[in-house]
C-alpha cells in the first residue's frame, strides 16, 4: 500500500485528488530502462535453450508450448512493472487509463526488439562456439518455422501485445486483474498438473475427464482450456459475490484496509472462531491425505514421496534456521548421517557390520548418530558470528561428503561405489516398504512427516521454542533475559539433525542404495530455498514451499512435475532465492513474528504515520491531542 493509501485508509477519507495523463506523456527513461532489462532477459532466456528444450511440451494443444511460454511471460511482467507507481504523500495520484496500456506496450515492444536482433544475429553470424544455443533450432522457433521477416517482425508485436495486457492490469482495477491472473494460472496449472490429474482420474475410473481435457500429444485441448478458464471466472465471480453477501456479516475483505488488515479476533465473524470448524477441517485434510494415495498411480505417489522427504528435511532445517535463526548451510550432513547409518547397518552389501539389523533398529541408531553429529558440528560453531557459522557448517557438510568418498574410510562406506542392496522396511511383519512400491513409501513418509509436524508444532510453543525465537530476534537480549543460549542453540542443532536423519533413513530404504554424490552441498541449498520460499519459521509455509517447489521443479536428484526443467532447476532455485530475499523475505506464508522482525522499519513508519494522523485529527477537532492516540 502506498503512503497516501495508508494515510487515507487510516483517516477513512477518499483518495487524493486525481487527474488523467495523456497517452504519450510517459516516463521515457523508465520505459527505456524497462525495455533494456526485458531485452536482456528475453535474449538470455532464448540463449539459455529453454525455448528449444521445452518446445515439445505442449500446454494448450496446437497453440502454446512451454517453450513459447518461456518467452511470453516476461513481457507481461515487465508491462505490469512499468505501470507501478509509488504515490507519495501530498502528491496527486494519476487516474489509471490508456497511458498504462501504452507504457506496457512500449516496454514490451522495445524489449522484444532484443529478440529481433537475436534473429538477425543468428541468421548472419555464427558464434555457436561459446554460446551453445546459438543454433538453427532456436532460429526455427523464433521464426515460427516460417521466414526471417516473420521472426523479426512478430516478436515486437507479441511484446507490445503482452506488455499492453500487463499494463492494462492497472487500468482494469484489482478485481478484473485478479480474475485474469487466476484464469492464466489455473489454465497453466491444469496443463502442468496433467500427469497428476490423469493419474487421479484413472484412480477414480473417470478416464473420460482426462481424455477430454488433454489431447493425444499431451497438453490441454482448445475447448478444455476455454472450459478451465470459464470455470475459473465463475469461481472468482462466485467468491466475490459470496464475500459481498450479507451472510458474511456485511463485511468485505477488500476495501478499507485498516479495518481488516489488523485482523483482531473480535472483527471476525463468529462462525470462523468456532473450534469445531477448525477440527473438522483438520480431520477432513488428514482423511484426504490418508485415502488419496490409494487412488493415485505410481508416478504421483513417487512424486509425493519425494515431496514428503523434502518436507521432513525442510521441517528439520526450519527448526535450525527458521526458529533459532542459525544459518546452517551444511544441513545435508545430517541427511547423509541418516542415510549412511541405515545403509551400513541394514545392508548385506555394506563392507563392515555383518549382523544386519532391521530398519527400525537402524533408525534408532541413525537418530542417535545424527544427534551426536548435531552436537559435534554444533558445539564448535555455536559461538561464532552468524555468517562465519554459515560457511563453517558448509565446510562440515563438504568434509562429510569428502570423507564418505575417501579411500581412507572406504572400509566402512565403500567410497564412490556407495552401499547397495539396502533392504526395504519391514513394518512389524505387517507390510514391507520398498522403493518399487511408491505407495508404501509414501505412507511411511507421511507417518514421519506427521511426527515431524507434531514435534515442530509442540516445540514452537514450548519453553525451548520461545527461547529459540528470542535468540533469533536478539541473542544478547535473550541471554540477558536468562535464556541459556548455548544449550538452546545446541538443542536446535540436535533436533534439526534428528529430523533430517529420518529423511536420510527413508531415502536409503526407498532407493535401496546410497552414494556420496547424493549428499552434495546443493541439497542443503535446495532445502534452504524451500524453507525461505515457504516462510521461515512457519510450519504450513515450509510444507507449502516443499509441495510447490519440489512438486513442480523437483529436488536436486529427483524429478518434479516439469521434468523438462531438470537442467534449469538450480538456475531457477538461485533466481528464486534472490527474488524472495529482495521482494518478500518473510516467504510465501509468513510467520507473523518473523515478518515483524524483518519489517520493523516499515512498521515503525506506520506507527509514526498513524500517530501523525491522530495528532492532526485531534488538532482539527480541537480536542485534547493525547486523546487521539490510536
Amino acid at each position, binding site marked *: 500500500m502506498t503512503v497516501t493509501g495508508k494515510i487515507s485508509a487510516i483517516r477513512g477519507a477518499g483518495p487524493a485528488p486525481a487527474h488523467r495523463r495523456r497517452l504519450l506523456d510517459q516516463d521515457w527513461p523508465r520505459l527505456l530502462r524497462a525495455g533494456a532489462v526485458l531485452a536482456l532477459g528475453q535474449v*538470455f532466456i532464448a*540463449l*539459455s*535453450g*529453454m525455448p528449444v528444450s521445452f518446445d515439445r511440451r505442449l500446454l494448450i494443444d496446437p497453440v502454446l508450448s512451454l517453450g513459447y511460454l518461456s518467452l511470453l511471460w516476461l513481457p507481461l511482467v515487465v508491462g505490469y512493472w512499468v505501470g507501478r507507481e509509488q504515490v507519495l504523500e501530498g502528491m496527486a495520484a494519476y487516474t489509471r487509463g490508456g497511458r498504462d496500456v501504452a507504457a506496457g506496450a512500449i516496454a514490451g515492444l522495445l524489449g522484444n526488439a532484443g529478440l529481433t536482433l537475436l534473429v538477425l544475429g543468428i541468421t548472419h553470424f555464427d558464434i555457436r*562456439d*561459446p*554460446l*551453445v*544455443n546459438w543454433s538453427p533450432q532456436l532460429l526455427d522457433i523464433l521464426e515460427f518455422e516460417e521466414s526471417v521477416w516473420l521472426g523479426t517482425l512478430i516478436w515486437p508485436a507479441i511484446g507490445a501485445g503482452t506488455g499492453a495486457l500487463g499494463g492494462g492490469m492497472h487500468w482494469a482495477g484489482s478485481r478484473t486483474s485478479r480474475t485474469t491472473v487466476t484464469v492464466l494460472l489455473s489454465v497453466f496449472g491444469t496443463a502442468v498438473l496433467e500427469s497428476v490429474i490423469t493419474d487421479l482420474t484413472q484412480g477414480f475410473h473417470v478416464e473420460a475427464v482426462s481424455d477430454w481435457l488433454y489431447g493425444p500429444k499431451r497438453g490441454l485441448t482448445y475447448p478444455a482450456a476455454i472450459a478451465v478458464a470459464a470455470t475459473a471466472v465463475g469461481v472468482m465471480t462466485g467468491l466475490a459475490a459470496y464475500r459481498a453477501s450479507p451472510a458474511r456479516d456485511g463485511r468485505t475483505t477488500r476495501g478499507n484496509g485498516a479495518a481488516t488488515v489488523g485482523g483482531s479476533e473480535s472483527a471476525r465473524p463468529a462462525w470462523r472462531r468456532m473450534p469445531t470448524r477448525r477440527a473438522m477441517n483438520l480431520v477432513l485434510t488428514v482423511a484426504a491425505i490418508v485415502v488419496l494415495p490409494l487412488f493415485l498411480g505410481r508416478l504421483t505417489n513417487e512424486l509425493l514421496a519425494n515431496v514428503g522427504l523434502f518436507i521432513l528435511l525442510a521441517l528439520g532445517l526450519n527448526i535450525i534456521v527458521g526458529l533459532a*535463526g542459525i*544459518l546452517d*548451510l551444511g544441513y545435508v550432513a545430517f541427511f547423509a548421517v541418516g542415510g549412511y547409518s541405515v545403509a551400513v547397518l541394514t545392508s548385506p552389501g555394506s563392507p563392515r557390520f555383518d549382523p544386519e539389523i532391521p530398519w527400525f533398529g537402524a533408525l534408532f541408531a541413525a537418530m542417535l548418530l545424527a544427534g551426536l553429529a548435531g552436537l559435534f558440528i554444533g*558445539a*564448535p560453531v*555455536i*559461538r*561464532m*558470528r*552468524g*555468517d*562465519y557459522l*554459515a*560457511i*563453517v557448517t*558448509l*565446510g*562440515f557438510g*563438504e*568434509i562429510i561428503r*569428502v*570423507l564418505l*568418498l*575417501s*579411500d*581412507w574410510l572406504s572400509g566402512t562406506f565403500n567410497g564412490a561405489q556407495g552401499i547397495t542392496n539396502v533392504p526395504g522396511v519391514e513394518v512389524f511383519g505387517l507390510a514391507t516398504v520398498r522403493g518399487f512400491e511408491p505407495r508404501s513409501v509414501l505412507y511411511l513418509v507421511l507417518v514421519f512427516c506427521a511426527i515431524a509436524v507434531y514435534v515442530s508444532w509442540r516445540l514452537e510453543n514450548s519453553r525451548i521454542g520461545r527461547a529459540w525465537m528470542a535468540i533469533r530476534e536478539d541473542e544478547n537480549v535473550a541471554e540477558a533475559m536468562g535464556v541459556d543460549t*548455548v*544449550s538452546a542453540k*545446541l538443542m536446535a542443532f540436535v533436533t534439526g539433525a534428528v529430523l533430517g536423519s529420518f529423511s536420510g533413513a527413508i531415502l536409503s530404504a526407498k532407493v535401496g542404495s546410497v552414494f556420496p554424490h547424493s549428499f552434495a*552441498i*546443493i541439497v542443503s*541449498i535446495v532445502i*534452504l*530455498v524451500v524453507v*525461505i520460499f515457504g516462510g521461515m519459521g512457519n510450519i504450513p509455509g515450509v510444507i507449502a514451499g516443499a509441495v510447490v517447489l519440489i512438486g513442480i521443479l523437483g529436488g536436486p536428484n529427483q524429478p518434479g512435475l516439469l521434468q523438462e526443467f531438470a*537442467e*534449469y532447476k*538450480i*538456475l531457477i*532455485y*538461485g*533466481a*528464486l*532465492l*534472490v527474488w524472495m*530475499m*529482495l521482494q518478500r*523475505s518473510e516467504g510465501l506464508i509468513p510467520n507473523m513474528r518473523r515478518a515483524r522482525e*524483518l519489517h520493523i522499519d516499515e512498521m515503525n513508519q506506520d506507527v509514526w504515520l498513524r500517530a501523525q494522523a491522530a495528532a492532526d485529527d485531534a488538532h482539527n477537532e480541537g480536542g485534547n491531542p493525547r486523546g487521539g492516540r490510536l
Partner: protein
Amino acid sequence: MHKTTKQRTNVDWFLTVLRVTSLAMIAAGLLAFAAQIIDSNNPFARWANPDAISLTGEQFQGLVVTGLAQGAMYGLIALGYSMVYGVLGFINFAHGEVFMVGAMTGAITSNKLAEAGYWESSFVLCLMLVVALSVVVCTITAVIMERVAYRPLRGKPRLIPLITSIGVSFFLQNCVLVLLGSTVKSYPDLPNWLTDKRTFLEIQGSKVLVLAVAALAMVGLWYLVEKTKTGQAMRAVAEDAEIASLMGIDVNRIIVKTFAVGGAMAGVAGILWGLLFRSVIHTTGFLPGIKAFSSAVVGGIGNLGGSMAGGLTIGVAESLGPLMILEPLGVSGPSQLRDAVAFAVLIIVLLVRPSGIFGERLPSEERT
C-alpha cells in the same frame, strides 16, 4: 568476545578439548613426519603408519611451490571477500563465481586467439589481452551483482545479503551452464618455456609466472588502496560508513568501486587458474571460492595483506598437509582429503584464533 566473567560451561570444555586435540594431532603428524625424514626405521616413524614413505627434497619443494602458486590464486580471490566484508560486513558468497566467470572468459578468448594463431607466436601479448578481458568481464559482473542483488538490501540484517549471495552464486553458476554448455573448456597448450622445468631451482615456469602475476596484482592493489584518493575513501568507508558520508564521500560509489576492484582481482585469479589447471567448468568457482573465504578469515578478514598471507597458508597447507600430517598418522589415500584439509584449517583457526592470524580490521560495530 569479552565474556571474561562468564562461567565455563560444558561447551567451553568441549571446545578446549577440541582445540587441544586438533593441535596435538597436527603436532603428532608433523613429529612422525620429521622422524621419517631423520631415519625411516626409527620406532616413532613407524608408530602410526609403518608403510609411510617420507618425501624427497625435490618432491617437498615441488609441493611447496604448487601450494604457493595455488595459494597466491586463493589470496587474490580472498581480497574480494575481504574488501567487501570490510566495507559492507557481509560475506559475498557469489565471489567465487565471479572468479569462475573470469576463468571461463579466459578459456574462450585464449582458444579464439589460439585458433587465430596468435597464442603461439606472441604469448605474452596474448596473455595480457586475456587478463585484461577477464578483468573487464569480472568487474562488470561484480558491479551488476552489487547493483541488482545487494544494493536494495543495504541495512538489512547481515544474514539476508548472505542468503541472497548464495542465490546469486548458484544463479551465476547455472547461467554459465545453460549459456556455455556443460562441457569442460580447456585452455590451449602453454609454450614450452613455461611447461618445462627450469634449471633454476627446478621450478615449473608456469608457477613462477602465476606467482609473478599475483605479486603484480597485489602491488597494484596496494598502490590503489594506500596511495590514491579512492583508496583513502575505501579505507574511510570501511572504518565507518556513516562518518565517511558526512565527510563528503559518496558511499555508494565507493561500494561499487570496492566490488569492481574485488571483481578485477578475481578476474586475474581466474586466468591464474587457467594457467595452473588448464581447464574450467561451471562448477569451478565453488571450492576455490570457499577456500579463498577461508584464506580471508585465516589472515584476518578486512586485512588485505592478511588475505594474501592467508591464501598462501591455505595453499601450502592443503598441498603439504595430507602428506606431512595425514599420511604419517596412517590415513590412506590422503591426497583425496585435500579439500577437507582446507576446511579443517578454517575450523581450527576459528577455534584457536577467531580474529585470524594477522588480526581483522573491521568497523567498530562489526566487531563482536
